[in-house]
Structures are given as structure tokens and as C-alpha cells.
């Protein structure tokens, strides 16, 4: 295995000096966690119920009782004038409530009064405020209606025919995991992105630089050359992937998930389990990239093929997001699906059958060896050596 080590050492050193490879190995792992933090915090911010909402209102004097009730529930109001539609569509206001002059007279006559909410539903940031205002006014409606019935000697329960009672069976950690389902996808992506630079540089790059011929003239088996290159690329991939995972988990501990009433905690042991679960993906990613890379005549050429390859590992993640499936043992043996299941299960704090830990790396490593063997075969092909 002497030659294998020589090739590995050279490719690793070469890779570290390759600014393009190092950047692509580091940028994603460094950026992804912050993206995760930003996305989830924004989501929480939007959903958060306690946020103070300032609402523009026109004709507040027409319904002093309603306004006072809403203020009591935490809304603050600012009087507004002018064209409400223009105010909303020019984004000066999230929403405007218009209370017509006849509000009071209809109320007094026990007829339905109307309150208009002007809003722009294409604005995500305003949605939370609109639905909060709407549900508060709905609450006011039931309260006043109930009072009206009571004064007429009727029980308010007459109005309430069926009431839904929610019973949640998923644990809070599981709900949080579903909410965070894009984290496993990021980790898989990191495995594919981080090793790509060097996997491609040591195959397509070797052809592009015209060093391939000189390399193959040496008395070394092709398989050893391929293995050396593969493992060097995999080290990059593993580092990038581990960084993404650890940083994501670290960042998640700062996200105020409890504001949604959710709990998300991972123990160091779980992080180790997740690393073990995803490790085979790094090997798979680079062996696939090398196989594709050797067909390409240049780095750019290879990048366009490999762009499509990145979608492949995301499929199980996307599929299970939209079609949740019950895990069965054989699924652990399906490359990529197995890793995805392991990762989400460990992250969700579920028990994984021990066989899952064995099946998933074995099937992936077998596939890797097939890819590497094919790459080594292609290293012998005349049309690839001489281009």
C-alpha cells in the first residue's frame, strides 16, 4: 500500500494549496449553520404570539368598546388617514382596519356590524399580524354574541355545536425535528460540496493539466492511484460535513425554539451518532464525483455534470419530507436513504435498531468500491488517457 500513501499525501497537499477546493470545502459548512439560524429565528419570530403589533386604524371612534377590548389583548393602535389600499400596497402599513360610521348603530340594533381589514397576503411578514388581528376580532365576536344570548336567556353553548380538542402524539422533539428537516439535507449537501473540488481536480484536472500520462507511466497499480485520490478527497468531504453538522447543532442550541413551545436538545452522544450515520456519505460522494470527473476533459466540463449529481442525495430527504414513510429494516440498506433515516432518527432522539448502523455503511461502501473499481478501469482506457 506504499503507492497508495504516496498518492494520498500528494493529493492532500495539492488539495490544501488549491484555493478553489479549500474555499468550496469551507464556505458551505461555515455559511449553512448561519442560514439555519437565520431561517429558523425568522420563522419563530413570525409565528411568535407575544409580539406587540401596532395596527393602523381608521374610524376608531366608531367602535370605542372594540378598540378598548383589543388594546387589553395587547394590540396598540395608531390612527391612520388616507387611502388604506395605497398605504398597504406601498408597504407603509402591514394592515389597516377600517371601522365604518354605521358600526355603532348596527351594533345597537343587534345587527351584524362590519370591520374591514385591508392587507396584502403576498407579504409573508404581515401574515402573522393579520391572522392575529382576525382571531382577536373573532374572539371579541364570540364574547359579545355570548353576552347577547345570555341577556335573552339562552345558553351560549347553543351556538357551539362541535368543539375540536387536539391531542398531540408526537413528542416535542419530534415536531422540532420535522421543523428542522432541512438540516439533514444540508449535511448531505455538505458531504457532496466539500470534497468536490479535489475529487474533480484529481481526475478531470489531471487530464486538463496533461499530467495524466506521466502519472500512469509509473509502476503503480491503477487501483492504488484511484484509492489514494479518493481517500484524499474524502478527508475534505468528511471535514466539511462534520463541520456543518457540529456547527448546525451548536447554532440550534441558541435558537429560541421554546417560544414555539418546542424542545430541541442533542447530547454529544447523539452528535457522534449522527456523524457515524453520515460518514459513509462522504465516501460515496467523492467516489461518484471521481467517476464522473474522469469522463470530463476539464474542470468546468466536470462541474456541469456534477451539478446534476448533487440533486441525487437530496432525493430521499425531499421524498420523506413530502411522503413520510414508516421505516423498515431494508431501507437502511438503500444507499443515501439509509443515511437519511439514521440521521433524522438520531436527531429526533428515536431508538435506531443496531442493524441500521451496520447495514447502511456496508451497502454504501460496497457501492463506493464498485465506483472506484470502475474509475480505475477507466484509467486504463486509451481514449481517456490520450485526449
Amino acid at each position, binding site marked *: 500500500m*506504499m*503507492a497508495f500513501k*504516496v*498518492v494520498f499525501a*500528494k493529493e492532500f*497537499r*495539492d488539495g490544501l*494549496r*488549491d484555493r478553489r477546493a479549500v474555499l468550496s470545502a469551507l464556505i458551505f459548512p461555515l455559511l449553512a449553520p448561519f442560514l439555519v439560524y437565520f431561517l429558523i429565528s425568522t420563522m419563530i419570530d413570525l409565528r411568535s404570539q407575544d409580539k406587540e403589533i401596532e395596527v393602523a386604524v381608521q374610524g376608531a371612534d366608531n367602535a370605542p368598546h372594540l378598540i378598548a377590548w383589543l388594546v387589553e389583548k395587547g394590540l396598540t393602535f395608531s390612527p391612520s388617514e388616507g387611502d388604506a389600499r395605497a398605504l398597504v400596497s406601498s408597504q407603509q402599513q402591514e394592515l389597516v382596519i377600517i371601522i365604518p360610521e354605521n358600526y355603532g348603530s348596527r351594533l345597537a340594533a343587534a345587527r351584524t356590524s362590519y370591520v374591514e381589514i385591508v392587507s396584502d397576503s403576498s407579504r409573508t411578514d404581515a401574515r402573522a399580524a393579520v391572522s392575529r388581528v382576525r382571531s382577536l376580532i373573532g374572539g371579541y365576536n364570540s364574547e359579545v354574541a355570548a353576552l347577547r344570548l345570555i341577556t335573552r336567556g339562552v345558553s351560549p353553548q347553543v351556538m357551539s355545536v362541535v368543539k375540536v380538542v387536539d391531542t398531540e402524539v408526537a413528542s416535542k422533539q419530534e415536531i422540532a425535528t420535522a421543523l428542522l428537516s432541512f438540516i439533514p439535507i444540508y449535511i448531505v449537501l455538505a458531504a457532496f460540496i466539500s470534497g468536490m473540488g479535489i475529487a474533480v481536480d484529481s481526475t478531470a484536472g489531471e487530464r486538463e*493539466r*496533461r*499530467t*495524466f*500520462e*506521466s*502519472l*500512469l*507511466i*509509473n*509502476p*503503480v*497499480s491503477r487501483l492504488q492511484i484511484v484509492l489514494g485520490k479518493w481517500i484524499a478527497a474524502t478527508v475534505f468531504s468528511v471535514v466539511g460535513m462534520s463541520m456543518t453538522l457540529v456547527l448546525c447543532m451548536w447554532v440550534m442550541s441558541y435558537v429560541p425554539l421554546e417560544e414555539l413551545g418546542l424542545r430541541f436538545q442533542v447530547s454529544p452522544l447523539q452528535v457522534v451518532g449522527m456523524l457515524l450515520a453520515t460518514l459513509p456519505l462522504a465516501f460515496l460522494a467523492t467516489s461518484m464525483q471521481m467517476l464522473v470527473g474522469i469522463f470530463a476533459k476539464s474542470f468546468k466540463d466536470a462541474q456541469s455534470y456534477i451539478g446534476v449529481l448533487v440533486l441525487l442525495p437530496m432525493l430521499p430527504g425531499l421524498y420523506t419530507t413530502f411522503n413520510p414513510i414508516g421505516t423498515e429494516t431494508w431501507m437502511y440498506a438503500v444507499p443515501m436513504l439509509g443515511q437519511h433515516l439514521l440521521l433524522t432518527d438520531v436527531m429526533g432522539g428515536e431508538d435506531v435498531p443496531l442493524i441500521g448502523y451496520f447495514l447502511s455503511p456496508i451497502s454504501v461502501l460496497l457501492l463506493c468500491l464498485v465506483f472506484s473499481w470502475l474509475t480505475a478501469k477507466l484509467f486504463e482506457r*486509451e481514449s481517456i*488517457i*490520450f485526449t
Partner: protein
Amino acid sequence: MIEAQQLVKQFKGVDAVKGISFNADAGEVTGLLGPNGAGKSTTMRMLYGLLAPNAGRVLIDGINMVTDTRLARTRLGVMTDNHGLYSRLTAREHIHYFGRLHGMTNDQVEVRADELIRLLGMMNIADRRTHGFSQGEKTKVCMAQCLIHNPANVILDEPTNGLDVMTTRIVRDVVRELKTLDITVLFSSHMMHEVARLCDKIVIVSMGEVVAQGTTEEIKAIAAVDDLEDAFVKLVEQVIPK
């Protein structure tokens, strides 16, 4: 000693090499001469084992290149015609890499690399990354990586192509030096004066066949002309169908 025996190579049904035979002996410089497209590069590639001949044999010191490829390669140093280098490695790291691939230890490589760096006059570039090297500097690195493992047989594919006078001289000096060390040197070129000056033996190929081989005097005698260049043109054109 390098022996080509009845080498045949076809690409998609087209005959590139049609039965080439010659020997390059130890302590001699053999020049493979031919116009573009004559089958020189194809022949060279079969000799260093990256193309498999459709028929015929290649022997390096009696070892069959097709059946015993790795052993044959240990006895062979090759400089290909494309002079590609890893741009992020220094010249010295380059030479090291190839020495290690030949199974040498770190210490062996270091001693030998220093020797070659001195021999090829590349002290000033040895520890620079090869990115941006001139054609001459690239050739020196390739030459060093070809000689790092002290091969008994050396194949140089158009080594002086595109070089300035100074570097050409260094290459020539190295070839002469190799000859005194009793090493087999085979090199291809299409520069007549160079071949005449350096080679003990010339093999002229055209249309995938050997049209003549021997010393410069013998070549001139075969063509029945006084000038080597005229002899070359005459011999090459003989086999080109009109």
C-alpha cells in the same frame, strides 16, 4: 535495451502503425525520426505501455511490456511530449512525487533529486511552484522526474520541442551524459540536425512503417544522396501514395 518487434496498432480500423521493428541498444542514442502523423507518438506510447499493441511485442531489457507491465516500467524513464505539471507543487516536490511512486525511500529521493537539480541547472527554480514556468523550465522538471529512479532505459518524446538554445544544450548534454553511463536512450524528433548530432543510430518512420535504419552514413547510402535532410525527405516520400 528497448526492443520493438513487429508492432501493429489500429485506431477504429485505420492502421496507425503497421509492423514497426527496431532495437535501441544500451550505451547508444537512438533517434526515432518521422514527419507528423507518421506513427512516432503511437509507437512511443506502445513502448512505454500506455497503448496496447494489436500485435507485436515490446521488450524492455528483455521484459515484456504488455504482460509484465509494472516490472518493465521500473526499468524505464519516460518524458512525454506534453510536459504537464502540477501547478501547485514546487519543482522539487514534483521530482519527489515521481521518485516515491517508483518505490524509492525519502532519503534516496532527496539525494538523487539534488543530483538532478544540479545536473539540469535548476537550482534557482527548484523550490518554486511550477505555475507559470517557461517551456524550458517545464522541460527540466519533466526531465528530472523521468530520470529520478536511475532508469537503465530512457524514452524522450520530442524533448527539445519549443526550447531556446540554452535549454536545448542542457538537454543535449544530459543525453550525452546518459550515454556515458551505458543507458539506453531513445528519443523522437523531427529536427534533422539534432538527430544527426546526437544519435548513434537513426530509425526513420513514415506511414506507420520503418523506411530505413542505421547510422547517418548508412541512411545517406540507402537513399543514395549526400545530405541527410534530402535523404530523409526521399525515404519518407517513397512510401506516401501519390
